[in-house]
Each structure stands twice: as C-alpha cells, then as structure tokens.
C-alpha cells in the first residue's frame, strides 16, 4: 500500500509543497477558512530568491511597516514562503499591516541572522500569502552602526486555485470537504 503524503504547513526540512495538485486547501483569511482545489504548483527558487531591501537604517533604528510588494499574489493564488535575512537586521512579519505574525501575548518573534543558524531550512518562519492579503515587514538594525542595506530573501511555491463554493466554514452546520489542508494565510487574531 503506498504511503500517503504528509500534508501540513510548517513541515521541517527543505521546503516542499504542502499539498499536491488536485487536493483541497482551506485558506484562513478574514477569520474563516475558504476552500479551494489546487490546480497547479510552481517553485520560487531558493537560488534566486525574491529579495527585498528595506534600505539604509541608522544604528539601532527601526523602519516603518513596509509592504513586501514583491510577494503580492495574483487572484486565486497563494504563495508559500520561507525567509532568511541577509544583513544583520531583524524583521517582524505582518499580514495585514497591523497584524504581526509569530507572536505570543507579550512577544513577537522575528527573523534574524540567527534564524539561519538554528533553522537552516526556515520551516519555523514559513508563511502564506493569499490574493491581496499582503505581507508587510518591519526591520530593525541590530548593530551599533548604520547599515547601508537591510535585505531579506524569500523562496517557496505558488499555488493556482479554483474556489470550491460548495463548502463553507461559516454555514451552520459547517459543510467541510472530506479531507483538506489548513493554510494559515493571515494571523489568528
């Protein structure tokens, strides 16, 4: 009997697609899951990542919350991304300009130069961008001197989707697909 693929986000190890074409995902946006079938998957290469530069930052200073415009997705697509900072900065991820990711009640975890060291594959920092639920970042210079560039790189996969309107998270009772994979594309507020 063939082994079933393990379908879940934040999978440890080198990045893999979280689902296969033809399978169903529930994308978490606006505090509900919306259901789609995956039609097509394509890689965004680690070797030539999507690189964003927050620009020069004074010693110890923090930038404004800035849209990571290069991560915008077309309609009915979501992106699965991992991240690694290149310069000695920390970056807090936002989805929704005001909604931080990777946070506890009193502390927000950020991507730093140490992330690569302890999580070389970047799976703990994986995140998902759906349609126009854009990603934003805020960078802080960790050093005692001005940095000229404040770069962070992203890589992963893009997924082309078809909506399955016959399923509903909000209906009472809920009408859910028989099997589906959760895609946390925004924070759980």
């Amino acid at each position, binding site marked *: 009997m063939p082994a079933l693929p393990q379908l879940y986000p934040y999978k440890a190890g080198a990045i893999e697609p979280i689902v296969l074409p033809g399978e169903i995902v529930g994308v978490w946006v606006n505090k509900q899951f919306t259901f789609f079938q995956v039609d097509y998957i394509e890689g965004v290469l680690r070797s030539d990542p999507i690189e964003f530069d927050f620009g020069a930052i004074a010693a110890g200073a923090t930038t404004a919350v800035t849209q990571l415009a290069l991560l915008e997705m077309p309609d009915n697509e979501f992106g699965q991304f991992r991240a690694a900072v290149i310069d000695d900065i920390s970056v807090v991820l936002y989805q929704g300009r005001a909604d931080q990711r990777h946070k506890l009640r009193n502390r927000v975890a950020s991507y730093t130069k140490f992330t690569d060291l302890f999580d070389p594959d970047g799976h703990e920092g994986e995140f998902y961008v759906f349609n126009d639920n854009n990603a934003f970042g805020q960078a802080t210079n960790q*050093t005692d001197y001005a940095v000229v560039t404040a770069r962070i790189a992203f890589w992963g996969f893009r997924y082309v989707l078809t909506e399955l309107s016959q399923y509903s998270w909000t209906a009472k009772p809920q009408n859910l697909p028989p099997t589906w994979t959760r895609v946390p594309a925004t924070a759980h507020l």
Partner: protein
Amino acid sequence: MATTYLKQAKGIRRVSDIITVTAAATPETLYQRTTGGQNPRTVILRKVMIYNNTGANAVVEIGTGLLAAFAAIVPPLYSLNLFDNEWTEDDLPVDEVGVSADLTVRSSVLGVQVQCEVEEIGS
C-alpha cells in the same frame, strides 16, 4: 583515544576594525559588541591578527574594560617587531558563554596593528 571537541557554531561571525594602538600601556576598544535584538550579544574571541612594525617587540593583551578596569581574557601575546602574528581558534582559550562587554586591547608599544574575529551569540 583522542577526544574531539565539536565546534558547533552558536552565533554569527564578526570582525573588528583594524586598530592601530594609539598609546602604550593604555587599553582601547578593539571590538564593540552588537546591541542585538532582545539583549546585547555576548562575544567569543575566535581569532587575533597582529602586525608589529613599531621598531620594538610588544606585549599585546586582549581583554575587557578601559583604563584601570582592564581585565585580560587571554594571556599576554608577544608580538615580534616586523612580524605578523595570528592566533586562531585552536590557539585561543574559549569561553563558550562569551564575554558580555566590548573587547579592548592593550599593548606595551604604541603603533601595533590589531584585528580580531569574534563569534557573537544572542539574538
């Protein structure tokens, strides 16, 4: 049976500026540790490079603190005139917890050039 010590990286590597010692027997800052994210990082000395073209042999000390607060973290290093010297990881005693301060250098002769490489741990 030989024992081995796993030198697993815990932090990120940084280098100091090349410091030309400006006054004999007077500590000055060699490496300013990074402010870091949650707390200032700690510093592990990994490499020291010295060039001595002063006309005299020099005793060079690496430590923390300025003026009377200077405290060496490695034994004095003897630098011969017109020689360059390198002390690498295998030569240096290493406190894997690191030093919670800037590194300073003191030389018996002014004009010695010193650079160090450190591993910073923290966030």
